[in-house]
């Protein structure tokens, strides 16, 4: 697909997305027909109250889970019925995740954590080391490569997680409450990195329930009770480089 087409066609498009957990009497209906589009270079915040289905939506968009109904088009392809292996390849090659709880491997170095996606991509070690070192340097952790993950601060952990999400040069970065476990100072650093990455052309989808955090995005999609409540550009965008702390 050419750049021209990419600019016109959405990177992500969902139509009437439905998600139920469980079956029969134990069924939990979470998403009731959600539709929206995300374009290349966008920075979207998905917001809503707790339990509204934000994480569920992100898991489906990030190929961690499958929708019960509706359609999902990724880079113009219908990916609704992909099997486990195809989903794994999508996660490996096209998606980067940043989680609230960092999810770094214990007793493993910073560098090795970031190399992990490249291990599963069967990259050569030299190439993996080079790529991982480069992204770690870009998030300001060039001096922590050989530290173990229990030897670094929470903010640094989340930067490692961002580096890991970036290392495969994904089409989209998903961040689910990335500042949720951080103090406001570390939080703003993370938001700044995400904004910088977006400036460089990366597409970012951020899940948060803090309005102040969401206002760092360019656009806010609000979910309520599994339905799309609103989808608006951010009127007064916050810029992390002008802030010292992340307001709560």
């Amino acid at each position, binding site marked *: 697909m050419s750049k021209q087409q990419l600019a016109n066609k959405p990177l992500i498009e969902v139509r009437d997305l439905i998600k139920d957990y469980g079956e029969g009497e134990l069924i939990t209906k979470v998403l009731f027909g959600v539709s929206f589009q995300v374009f290349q270079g966008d920075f979207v915040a998905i917001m809503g109250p707790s339990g509204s289905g934000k994480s569920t939506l992100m898991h489906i968009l*990030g190929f961690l889970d499958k929708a019960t109904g509706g359609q999902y088009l990724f880079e113009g392809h219908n990916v609704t019925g992909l099997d486990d292996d195809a989903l794994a390849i999508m*996660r490996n090659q096209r998606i980067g*995740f940043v*989680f609230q709880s960092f*999810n770094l491997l214990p007793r493993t170095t910073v560098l090795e954590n970031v190399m992990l996606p490249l291990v*599963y991509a069967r990259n050569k070690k030299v190439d993996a080391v080079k790529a991982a070192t480069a992204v770690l340097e870009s998030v300001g952790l060039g001096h922590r490569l050989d530290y173990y993950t229990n030897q670094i601060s929470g903010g640094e952990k989340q930067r490692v997680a961002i580096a890991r999400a970036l290392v495969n040069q994904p089409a989209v970065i998903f961040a689910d409450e990335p500042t949720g476990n951080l103090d406001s100072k570390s939080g703003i650093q993370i938001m700044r990195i995400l904004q910088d990455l977006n400036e460089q052309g990366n597409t970012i989808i951020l899940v948060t329930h803090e309005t102040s955090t969401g206002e760092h995005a360019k656009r806010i999609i609000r979910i309520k009770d599994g339905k799309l409540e609103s989808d608006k550009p951010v009127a007064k965008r916050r810029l992390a480089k002008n802030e010292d702390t992340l307001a709560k």
Partner: protein
Amino acid sequence: MSSYYHYLREIVRNALLTMLENKRRTLLTTLGIVIGVSAVIIINGIGAGAQGLIVGQVKKLGSNLLGVLPGKSESNGPPATAMGISITTLTYEDAMAVKDKRNVPNVIGVVPYSRGSATVSWRGVQTEASLSGCSVDYIAVEGGEVETGRFFSEIEDRDLARVAVLGSAVKSEIFGDNDPIGQNIKIKNQTFEVIGVMTERGQVAFQNYDEYVFLPINTMQHLIAGVRYIGLMRVKIDDEKNTEAAINDIILTLRERHDITDKTGASDDFSVRSAAQALDIITSITDALRYFLAGMAALSLLVGGIGIMNIMLIRVAQRTREIGLRKAVGATNNDIKLHFLVESIMITLVGGVIGIIIGETVSWLIAIVAQYLGYDWPFTILPLTILLAVGVSMAVGLLFGLYPAVKASKLSPMEALRYE
């Protein structure tokens, strides 16, 4: 550029790390495998050692020896006389007929035996000794050597001479350092002249020849035992190659003498064995024993395997979030499966290696002790045993690690990541 090397190395390294992380638990987990593998190796070591010992003993007899036993016996089972039953169908005359080259052309010598035990005394020194009534051919057939004095002659045998040749142990026991030649000893209250002492020989076919008093067989039969039959005859033939022909000739000779017309062998009242046959029987018995015991040991491997499965299931549960993360960054179901399989195989491999070391060490110690006790007990490390032990322990890891690994691989990444 894709590289499986880096990928596989990382999988192995990751398994090693998690094993080291739980050193003590890993070792505990391998206990079943360690016990199973070392038991198999020890049992095999004892089996091989015992077999070597037996085979060595029988080989000492010489492979061109045949044994003729009274009574029909199943060709694969032990002879009836071994059960303590005396059968009276073989006589001294039978032995002489077998010794006749017109009947058995390949014969070199025949020794009929009539055995018993009695109190032997000299100047108040008493001992219970085994008596072996035999013929002059004993020297030629069994390969014994006279140390001092001489063996009895054919004429002394025929004339029921009261002469005795002592085994070296009997000599030391009764005479100590005294010269026994020409001395009179009492056997069953009859006076015998000691005419010779045999050279020390040790164990042959599990009989200690040094503890025998050798008497002329006719003297033994008529003056001591009061029987006409013999317990066994040993036949020496010219060459092992002629075993079959000689066995056949012996059978025909004895059938004729015993008026047996049945050519099937079902009515025979004697049996002929070669040393080779005896070896086969012994080997098959010890082999069966080894397989049986090895089977028991395999059971402990099974128990060990179930232990591995349990531990791996616990590890899968403990590492659920990690599995979720690995899947999130692109691990496929097969990648996850491989992670856990490699771990379980490595755990059982460690157990196998420890088991091999313990098993071989114990086998070696047993051999050392047996050799110290004077047995000809061989100890060899068989590459095949090692290979088999390694293979079996890895197979246990694969087999019992499969279910937990598949379970891990099937976890939904979303649920694994939500797992608390």
